[in-house]
């Protein structure tokens, strides 16, 4: 017997590819541009969003029948804000260096459209378990893109991965730098993240023509 039913599996797998929150729904772009200059920051951001969406989805789903519909957006906001503050405090206490690096972007998780989008579109209408899976799925979809973008930007922009020099030393000219390779400083600027995401979208759509909108 499979661990998850077919429908449940789709909740996790769909957002990874055919319904990816970043490349298909184009949500959560702001943070994808801002914090992906380094792989490490991308991973921590992905984990933080994973925590906030999945737990938030469960909370919203549990109280979905007692939320007054007039103030449901505000209730959703409070849930996100509370979870984000908890993530922020925990990072400050146990990963101080990283929390300094991510600084304002942790706070900005609140405005990440993916989270409010999942609360409104899924958690309000589904049970806690399915909402949890949906949260995990969407966060993973977001994470995959963030990590791909972070990987290329750090590799091409700084010549490092997770802070380790993988292409040689640019100052003493070893490895690739010995034959005249240079880091591309452009990759570290936010517009290049948009271009990398654009390339991912292009590749994805040319492999799967279902995704192309008809006009």
């Amino acid at each position, binding site marked *: 017997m499979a661990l998850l039913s077919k429908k449940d599996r789709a909740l996790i797998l769909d957002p990874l590819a055919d319904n990816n929150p970043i490349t298909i729904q184009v949500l959560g772009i702001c943070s994808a541009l801002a914090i992906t200059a380094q792989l490490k920051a991308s991973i921590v951001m992905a984990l933080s969003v994973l925590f906030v969406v999945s737990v938030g989805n469960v909370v919203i789903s549990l109280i979905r029948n007692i939320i*007054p519909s007039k103030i449901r957006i505000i209730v959703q906001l409070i849930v996100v804000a509370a979870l984000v503050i908890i993530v922020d405090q925990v990072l400050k206490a146990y990963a101080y260096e990283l929390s300094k690096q991510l600084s304002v972007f942790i706070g900005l998780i609140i405005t990440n459209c993916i989270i409010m989008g999942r609360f409104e579109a899924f958690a309000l209408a589904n049970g806690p378990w399915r909402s949890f899976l949906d949260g995990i799925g969407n966060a993973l979809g977001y994470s995959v893109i963030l990590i791909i973008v972070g990987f290329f930007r750090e590799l091409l922009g700084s010549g490092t991965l997770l802070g380790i020099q993988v292409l040689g030393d640019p100052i003493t000219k070893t490895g690739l730098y010995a034959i005249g390779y240079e880091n591309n400083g452009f990759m570290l600027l936010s517009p290049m993240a948009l271009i990398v995401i654009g390339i991912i979208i292009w590749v994805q759509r040319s492999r799967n023509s279902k995704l192309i909108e008809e006009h």
Partner: protein
Amino acid sequence: MAKKTDSNLYTFLFAILMVVVVGSILAFVATALKPTITENQRFEKQQNILYAMGVNSNEGDNDVNFIPTDKVGQLFKEYIKKQLVIQGNKVTEDEEAYLIDLAKEEAQAKKAGYEKRLPLFVGEKDGKTYYIVPMRGKGLWDAIWGFMSFDENLVVQGVFFDHKGETPGLGANIKERFFMDDFKGEFILDENQNFASIKVAKGNNDPLNNRKEDNKVDALAGATITGNGVTAMIKNYLRIYLPHLKTLTK
């Protein structure tokens, strides 16, 4: 019939209850984590100050490694002999001077009648005395700050810079070794012993920074505004500290 969750009374009660519940959860989390967070901030300052006087855990040429947090409190006490607080013309000793927040002092100094409190540290390593001053300024996007240590001839012995949100790979490189190490040995006085500060200069024909008496270090390509911010920060703070440094080193 309208659902019960649509009534105004219900909405109000729900909102009030929600705020109380969420508020208490957050208050609990904040109180529980506060000691660890404050401790982290203390350690960071101690690490930065020690780094500026050359007490660090660097191994490779590009490392910027601080003394580990479990040892830094102890070593800070060992190396830092005196912590002074300068307020106007008054100089006092204060064990907790390193906790002074320059940002807050600057904000308060805008009010009339408040002289900002400025910490100055006297450290000792291998029989040599170091005078360490903090500084704070603006980069391209946000705040930048640092510490700079001098010997008794007012020659720079080491610096530490940090920033809140400079561009990674460009302005953010002010906290990299190759930039910070450039300041070692620089003079802040010109040949006539007048205050000249240290400029982060472009195209100064001295990229390896062999001339230490020229009051210049080589700028970071692509980070002009951050570099200018560093220049301004150093100038602003050294101008205030110089008279005190001169008295101390006499």
